């Protein structure tokens, strides 16, 4: 003891002795940290490079030449991109409004009622989530071609509503799982009719779920490429479709700038949706 106090202690090394790492603390081990780092570089490098190079002052976009906003100005002043952006917002707004209402109704119905062949109906409702997007895309195209309905904004909106309904229903149903049905019974006991009970008891409870589902529908609609690819016509180019045609043409910083705008937009919406869901989960009503 006296020796160790007398000699100068190698303090920084002793502060975190190796025995701090328990046998199951895999994440504290160097090799696991290296693996995590490799994974995260793989996940983030392409996107970070894409965003970084949208600020790169070079047309050929290969080496870093200096910081600029000019490709954002260019993207904002590109009429075709502007039109595509307006289309995307309009499609997303209508699709979100309709699919939120219909999806919420479906979620509540599935949560509340027992009916014949419910298992089958539930699998059927979840089908649009699981089948390959390309199958749904060509199916929508086949329907509109059969009834000779010209492809345009309407066909895109209708398709977006169809694939958004199940997602909203799933989110709303998850929210309703925490609902205490005795609250409704209490309301009925106290003299409220069925309609009043729904509006004053059930509806306020499901709002956070409906909002989160709606924001999910909004991001799905803004982001969708494959189904829109098959259902849009000449006048209904959406933002992702426009970016796709630009990508096919050439890889320019302007495409990076447009992509960055879309990334920021959808990330913001998703974060808001998460916050909504989180808040809804913590509060009682």
């Amino acid at each position: 003891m006296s020796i160790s106090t007398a000699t100068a202690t190698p303090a920084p090394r002793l502060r975190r002795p190796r025995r701090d790492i328990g046998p199951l603390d895999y994440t504290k081990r160097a090799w696991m940290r290296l693996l995590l780092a490799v994974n995260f570089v793989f996940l983030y490098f392409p996107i970070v490079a894409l965003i970084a190079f949208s600020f790169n002052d070079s047309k050929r976009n290969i080496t870093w030449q200096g910081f600029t906003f000019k490709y954002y100005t260019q993207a904002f002043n590109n009429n075709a991109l502007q039109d595509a952006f307006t289309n995307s917002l309009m499609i997303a707004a209508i699709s979100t409004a309709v699919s939120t209402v219909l999806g919420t109704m479906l979620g509540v119905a599935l949560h509340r009622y027992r009916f014949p062949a419910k298992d089958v109906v539930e699998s059927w409702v979840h089908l649009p989530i699981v089948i390959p997007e390309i199958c749904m895309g060509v199916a929508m195209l086949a329907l509109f071609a059969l009834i000779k309905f010209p492809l345009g904004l309407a066909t895109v909106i209708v398709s977006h509503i169809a694939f958004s309904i199940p997602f909203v229903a799933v989110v709303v149903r998850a929210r309703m799982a925490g609902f205490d049905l005795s609250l409704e019974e209490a309301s009925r006991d106290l003299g409220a009719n069925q309609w009043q009970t729904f509006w004053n008891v059930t509806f306020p409870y499901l709002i956070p779920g409906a909002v989160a589902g709606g924001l999910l529908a909004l991001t799905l609609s803004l982001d969708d490429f494959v189904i829109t690819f098959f259902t849009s016509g000449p006048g209904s180019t959406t933002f992702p479709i426009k970016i796709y045609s630009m990508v096919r043409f050439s890889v320019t910083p302007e495409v990076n700038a447009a992509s960055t705008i879309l990334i920021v937009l959808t990330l913001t919406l998703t974060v808001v949706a998460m916050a909504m869901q989180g808040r809804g989960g913590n509060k009682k009503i």
Partner: protein
Amino acid sequence: MQNWRRNKFAFSVLFLPPAAWLVIFFTLPLAIVWVYSFGARGPLGEIILDWSAVSLGNYARSLEWINLEIVAKSIWIAVVATAICIGLGFPLAMGIAFASPRYRNILLLLVILPFWTNLLIRTYAWIAVLRERGHVNFALEWLHDTINGGLAVLGLPALLGAFEPLQLLYNQNAVIIGIVYVNLPFMVLPLYATLEKLDRSYLEASLDLGAGQWRTLFSVTVPLSLPGISTGVLLTFILALGSFLTPDLLGGPDSIMIGNLIAQQFGSARDWPFGAALSFLLMYATFIILWVKAMVAKREGGSAF
């Protein structure tokens, strides 16, 4: 939960409008495609559906060598991509599940975050990484020149010769990288869900009883997380098999997948009945995989997710 008969009106008001929408704009379109898949293509690309033309010919055509090659290649690409996803995803999920609770949610969020950016953009981002004058080749060229420069300083001849950029884009490897990138979160999330719920005392028991870390990993941790592995594998495989955009943007002539073949039939080739048959082959594959998943979940008791 109420029986719907007790309140038929309220049930109908809630259930019928969304159900009707899904019938008209989801089930009906699929039914049309299903019917088309038995039809024949007319000389102008029209669909012939009279009884004499109805056959399984379109399904048989997918077994013709040129198409079978694409189907087989799609399955191969999906298998390889799924395998790489486990290889990357298992350590990642384990690293997150065994992190201290303070960092767990942050790490999880970091995995999901790229997944919220647009599929098209995530795929496009790889073009800049992999192309001839892309980030990877640029880094390699720099490394190459540095080594050559170093050798020159030492007075040695430039051993490596002139730099030849690697052809990384527009081939099968680029498609596999893209598919792994796009689908990795679908593997990591179910894996994380099981690893996080795992009873740690089994691992401690194994270590106490003298098994090493590797033995514990392969004899205890991996078998206990099989439900998560099976969900992740099946999910990733379905999504990989149905890829359309990734091979379209990153692939070349050697890496056309079923999705691209379907899009071709509904586009430039104008052979809708054949495209419809291919589309339903993909759907059947999906149904079989989902059925397998349901069976596995039933045997494990409860949900596999």
